[in-house]
């Protein structure tokens, strides 16, 4: 099984990532770092008035798994509603990757997912509804170790 960990699907996303870069005006953004391996992921979302993800971008550096997973995640969330993102769970993310990950590598595969979840959490905690959130160009809205 493990033999297929670095299959074309993962490597294609690693080499030609989907939406790697920055949004001009993200509705929300968040970064995190896995200090154990130094992997970093930032995710930026643009939400529209109906609470749908219009665009998702990521940026970061790290291993093929963490970077490909972030790319796959961005592709996946576009068009989803905030509600759907709330329901999106770690096992769903792991399934998206289509490769089996050991406990240690799951930390890599789930880094982007963690960033997304932290962002959703801070959206909930914010008093203004998502669509009216101020846009952010600083490195992070929610201060983290990123």
């Amino acid at each position, binding site marked *: 099984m493990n033999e297929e*960990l670095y299959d074309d699907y993962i490597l294609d996303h690693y080499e030609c990532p989907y939406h790697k870069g920055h949004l001009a005006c993200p509705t929300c953004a968040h970064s995190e770092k896995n200090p154990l391996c130094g992997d970093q992921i930032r995710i930026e979302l643009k939400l529209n008035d109906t609470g749908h993800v219009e665009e998702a971008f990521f940026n970061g550096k*790290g291993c093929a798994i963490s970077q490909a997973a972030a790319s796959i995640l961005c592709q996946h969330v576009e068009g989803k509603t905030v509600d759907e993102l709330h329901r999106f769970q770690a096992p769903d993310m792991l399934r998206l990757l289509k490769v089996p990950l050991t406990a240690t590598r799951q930390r890599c595969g789930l880094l982007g997912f963690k960033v997304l979840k932290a962002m959703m959490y801070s959206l909930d905690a914010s008093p203004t509804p998502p669509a009216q959130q101020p846009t952010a160009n600083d490195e992070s809205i929610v201060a983290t170790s990123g």
Partner: protein
Amino acid sequence: MSTPLETPSRPFDVHDVRRDFPILARPLPNGATLVYLDNGATSQKPLLVLDKLREVEATYNANVHRGIHQLGDRVTVELEAAREKIQRFVNAAESAEIIFTSGTTMSINLVAFAWGRKFLKPGDEILINEMEHHANIVPWQQTAKATGAKLRYIPLTADGRLDASHFDRLITTKTKLVAVTAMSNVLGTLNPIRELAARAHQVGAVILVDGAQSVPHLPTDVRDPAIDFLAFSGHKLYGPTGVGVLYGRRELLEAMDPFLCGGNMINEVHLESSTWADLPSKFEAGTLPIAEAIGLGAAIDYVQSLGFAAIHAQESKLLEKALRLLPQTPGVTIYGPSFEHRGSIVSFTVEKVHPHDLADLFDQKGVAIRAGHHCTMPLHDWLDVSATARVSFAFYNTEAEVDALIDAIHYARHKFRLE
């Protein structure tokens, strides 16, 4: 550090030696043969050690220093024999200077609390450097915060050695402690302990040596050069987890107050206060890692049966080969000094393949290495890479395993469509 080498009791033959480590011959879950190059993280244990552990647990398991019964007597005798083996192994003046701890980390923390917090004051300086393991940085950061002492860092040379040109400037009468690893767990750098000890003592400072990586691979003599504190772990020395050692010079240990409190470390306990036991008990609160300490004694027997001359010869051969072949492999950058200045550890990166991916792909071929910051974030900041891949050899590794390592790099590059 040098000590008269024990006469080895058997000629060194790596294939013969490998039979003492059954794990090296077992197929891995994925069917591959294990190529264990992660000895810096933890070493494998010879049968002699496994059997000794079983002997303790199955035939005279009891608490030490307490029971007046045959099991208790036997286990106490065995434990104290292990302490004496360790004493001779590092050439301490007396066995009471050998304190059993749970590992290097605990040994260093013991000194940071019981010596550091008692004797350091504002204005004093603790001298460390960026290649240290977190275990020899973070306790000093905390001690500096608690006491007002100042942390100072010896700069590194471009090839990852301590820059001796700064010693004069940095080792002054303000210096109260020099804490330094004898061998870097990332760069393999062998530090000039003799010179640092002499300079520390000249200014009246104390030197603590982190021997976690050096003690398993090189002879250690705490009296030549004179070292004040030495910390090391059982599990990197072919012994069990759960046990480590702090060697401390008697005079220093006597001047310190106990650290952990409880049974065994007391002389008398009254309602409001207590008095302390003599060395080594004063620093050994509670039930010791009994089987583990005895197992560590067996590991030392094993090492001495091979002798450091043979161990060093084998490991040098592997190191030399790795340092020769790695730079010839496309995309590889290695970190740290040249052969003469290092122990058998090599950290490297492969262009376009993250160390974690490398380690994972190596694992498919059975090659076990470590990827990450190896508990040396400041060093990785200094190297300006977030992670490296590390191979760390032991005497039971073979030249064929170095070839397997190189093959694994090609395999990883191939998988990443780089060749």
